[in-house]
């Protein structure tokens, strides 16, 4: 049985959208109807945005499934999952009230500022700990590779902290040179080869040769 709409049509749609984007980038100015507000490419981008926004429900369903599983199987995480469900439901109700009336209830504002934002900052900063221990292990001069990593890292560290220039005037000089020049070859090559990889990957994905994008599913 021909099931062209399950595979081939999907690739064709992706290809058409990609082609519009490419046309828009290169010839947008010259082809009427492609570029600019309200035209094909920006319409497609608005569509993509709306799809993105609507996808969160799928995520919510997954997360509720995960926690429901914990509760129904009475695992040692069941209590926390129950707390998740309750707190989530309360907050969602508050949010719906906000959407319906346009007035943000005070508990919602309070939770947003003191729980959501604050925990966000906390998690973001937690990296400080991990980076310390990562540096402690990575910056051991086990071999030449690691030694170069170490040299690059140490000089930049001491160039960034004001104490570096107090210790020795050469630290900011050399450290900033590593920053402005020393890292450029590696960085620039990353950029170039990354872009090449992206081109090849995009090409393969759009012609249906990439496993990640539905090339194997039935």
């Amino acid at each position: 049985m021909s099931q062209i709409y399950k595979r081939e049509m999907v690739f064709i749609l992706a290809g058409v959208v990609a082609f519009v984007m490419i046309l828009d980038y290169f010839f947008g100015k010259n082809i009427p109807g492609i570029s600019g507000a309200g035209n094909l490419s920006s319409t497609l981008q608005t569509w993509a945005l709306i799809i993105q926004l609507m996808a969160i429900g799928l995520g919510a369903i997954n997360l509720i499934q995960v926690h429901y599983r914990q509760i129904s199987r009475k695992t040692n995480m069941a209590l926390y999952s129950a707390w998740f469900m309750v707190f989530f439901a309360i907050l969602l109700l508050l949010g719906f009230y906000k959407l319906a009336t346009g007035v943000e209830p005070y508990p919602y504002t309070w939770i947003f500022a003191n729980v959501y934002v604050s925990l966000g900052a906390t998690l973001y900063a937690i990296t400080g700990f991990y980076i310390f221990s990562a540096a402690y292990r990575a910056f051991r001069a086990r071999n030449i590779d690691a030694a170069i990593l170490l040299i690059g890292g140490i000089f930049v560290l001491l160039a960034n902290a004001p104490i570096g220039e107090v210790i020795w005037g050469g630290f900011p000089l050399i450290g900033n040179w590593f920053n402005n020049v020393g890292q450029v070859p590696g960085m620039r090559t990353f950029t170039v080869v990354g872009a090449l990889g992206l081109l090849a990957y995009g090409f393969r994905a759009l012609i249906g040769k990439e496993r990640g994008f539905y090339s194997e599913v039935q």
Partner: protein
Amino acid sequence: MGVWIILDTKFVALLLLIAAFALFYAYMALAKGGMKIKARTFPAVAAIPEAIGRAAEMGRPVYYSTGMGQGTLNNQLNGPQTLAGISILGYTTRLCAKSGVKITYFTMIADSLPLVEETMRTAYMAEGKPEEFDPAVAINFQNEQSPYLTASLGWIQREKPASSILMGGFYYEAVCIGEAGNTIGAMQIGGSANTHQLPFLVATCDYTLIMEELYAASAEISGNLDVIGSLRGEDILKFFVLILLGLGFILALVNNNSLISLLKV
């Protein structure tokens, strides 16, 4: 330029794009036609079966994530990386299904969920065990980067995965998940094309795929000759870049601007 195609500075870019696609196509055709092209082996890819084998031996699960990826597939920097990560996820899941290892995929990209679920389900079906696939165990979605990190950290300490595979568009979570995995002694394989996270993946993981290696890895896994052919296309482009660099360097020494003005057309 007086023609109607006024490209500004994009003319060279367009030429490059066309040349690239022509090269990819040509080498894919050549490889299919029997030209011998062998991709360099990536230790990180070769280590994946070992990582799954380790999990099977220890009877522990596998942690997999494609990173934060700006929360959507529709992001030109991270979307392709997420897709490449999902390619490798398909391969990894299949290995897990074969040896009866539990794999849990952590993500914060809601719009990738259909793709992920179908990819993982296909992997289980290919091993003849579709009934073992349970989305509530295999996929763990969190809405944002920090919750995704919190949940990952908690899960890693509670479940103590034997291996942890991080492939995709990572941001600050890379170093945290990497170190958390290190604490419990997990075998770790990383890969990203986000330059700013590479130092941490290199520092915390046992094996790392750097930049285009991430994209190329799925080509290598597929083992399809024609797909590997496109990698040769990339190499030819690299030679081209090298020639331009060399030529430009020499011209710069004699203070000749012609190459630069040519590229800036």
